[in-house]
């Protein structure tokens, strides 16, 4: 966008308000998007937060910081961060292999990526339990441990980074990389200087989604984790327990904490993207 053609400065373009400037069309779009988002997400989530503070902020803090809640939140956030990082790296690698590489059966592999999504989470959990539980056919007994939680999360978050990076890679012009290689740049340099800056928005978008999914996952982790309070109970199971005991306020409090954590990480990734774009 640095060198805009002379036509952009023409009177015709200026009269249309130009691309990007706030005009009635944009305002309408923003209004509509905000309305949609409010009706679907913001108002319901707001109702949850509201319920969480129904008995006052002090009670909210108490409910959100009980030892059991704190342990569940810690386990959930730590696992989600780990899973997000693994996905950022391996997801990009897999997207690269799928787009730039070619081998027999590539299309089959490509189709496999979305499977964790389409499978009901209970099935995912059950199968992982069969594989890594008692009488494990592969000899790895990971069920009912924190490692089991991480495996389940890796399974359900697989498609996120892969699928956000793939379309960008497809659009990317390979000429720049080839030119850099022909000028003597090693693959790592080419990747770091040319490819990564272009991919970073997609990678961070996918990683944000993977993290978000990981902290909210219930169906698969509830089966493989064993739900031992303080050991392997994830936050969503803890919240479920609070709802089941008619402690909606406590459930809402912990849910609010998770929302705040998610917001922090999402904002952080957004800032990273902005920093990367500036320093590209």
């Amino acid at each position, binding site marked *: 966008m640095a060198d805009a053609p002379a036509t952009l400065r023409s009177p015709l*373009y200026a009269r249309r308000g130009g691309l990007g400037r706030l005009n009635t069309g944009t*305002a309408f779009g923003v209004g509509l998007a905000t309305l949609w988002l409010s009706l679907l997400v913001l108002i319901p989530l707001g109702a949850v937060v509201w319920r969480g503070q129904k008995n006052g902020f002090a009670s909210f803090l108490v409910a959100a910081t009980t030892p059991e809640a704190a342990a569940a939140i810690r386990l959930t956030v730590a696992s989600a961060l780990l899973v997000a990082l693994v996905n950022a790296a391996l997801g990009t690698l897999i997207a690269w292999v799928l787009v730039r590489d*070619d081998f027999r059966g590539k299309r089959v592999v490509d189709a496999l990526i979305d499977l964790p999504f389409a*499978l009901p989470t209970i*099935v*995912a959990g059950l199968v992982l339990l069969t594989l890594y539980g008692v009488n494990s056919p592969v000899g790895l007994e990971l069920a009912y441990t924190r490692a089991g939680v991480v495996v389940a999360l890796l399974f359900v978050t697989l498609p996120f980074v892969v699928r956000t990076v793939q379309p960008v890679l*497809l659009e990317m012009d390979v000429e720049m990389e080839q030119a850099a290689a022909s000028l003597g740049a090693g693959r790592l340099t080419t990747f770091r200087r040319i490819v990564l800056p272009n991919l970073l928005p997609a990678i961070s978008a996918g990683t944000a989604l993977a993290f*978000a999914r990981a902290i909210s996952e219930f169906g698969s982790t509830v089966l493989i984790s064993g739900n031992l309070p303080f050991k392997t109970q994830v936050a969503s199971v803890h919240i479920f327990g609070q*709802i089941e005991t008619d402690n909606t306020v406590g459930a809402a409090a912990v849910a609010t904490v998770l929302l705040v954590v998610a*917001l922090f990480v999402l904002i952080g990734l957004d800032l990273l993207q902005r920093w990367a774009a500036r320093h590209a």
Partner: protein
Amino acid sequence: MLDATAVLATPRATRPSTQPSTARNTRASKYVMRIVGLGYLTVLVGIPVGLIFWRTFEHGVSPVIDALTDPSVLHAFRVTAIVAFWAVLLNTVFGVGVAILLVRHRFPGRRLLSVLIDLPIAVSPVVVGLALILVYGRFAPVGGWLENHGIRVIFAYPGMVLATMFVSLPLVVREVAPVLEEIGTEQEQAAWTLGANGVQTFRRVTLPAIRWALAYGVVLTLARSLGEYGAVAVVSGRLIDKTQTATLVVEERFQNFDQTTAYAVSVTLAIVAILILVLINVLRPKEHS
């Protein structure tokens, strides 16, 4: 300093050719990446999914066919199809609109909107159900008003569509937005200056450019909608032959030790998602390697 613009500015003829050792390194790293990627996928996805397929057809194909043609199961597939269709449609329209808004326009609160779009996925399904009931339940403010006007949301289709939309909200946006950024505004600007209005520009220039990202977004949303269990379970009411979705049937059959039906239904859901993806891959013109 390696600058992309400088590289491109060098006339092609004078660029030094690739050294043989570089080519060897390139090949080696390519194989390493392939092995690592495929290895990870095999262990994480291939083996579990293989186990599911094996378990499904363990006793032959006819028990599977019997399971899938049970009237309640067929009805559940129908419920899932309807809910998924609406969720995908609405989220696609919303997703493309918001992606364009976020990438091509500047307005106060833009970054906040971007962050808020991702937030729904971070909400546990149990909380989604709770949140929707708190607002749209029969005895809740908005829900009560709608109920008085003959519209039931919770424990009926609209609630299930809302829950499914909730959990898959950012998927289309996050596929389309990075590609919109990548392709830049050159072509759109050209169209504008040539006299095209907003709709024409969108239809003729933007849409074709983002169509594969959009396709992936739709597939992801569809896959998520088919496989959604937790949030829909809470707001559906589990009414057999009415609001019971395929995933709820899976849970019910598992609980009743009818593993064949449970696996059969799950495999069907997975295969539908695969088929759509294969369709997209077949339609996509082969990329130049």
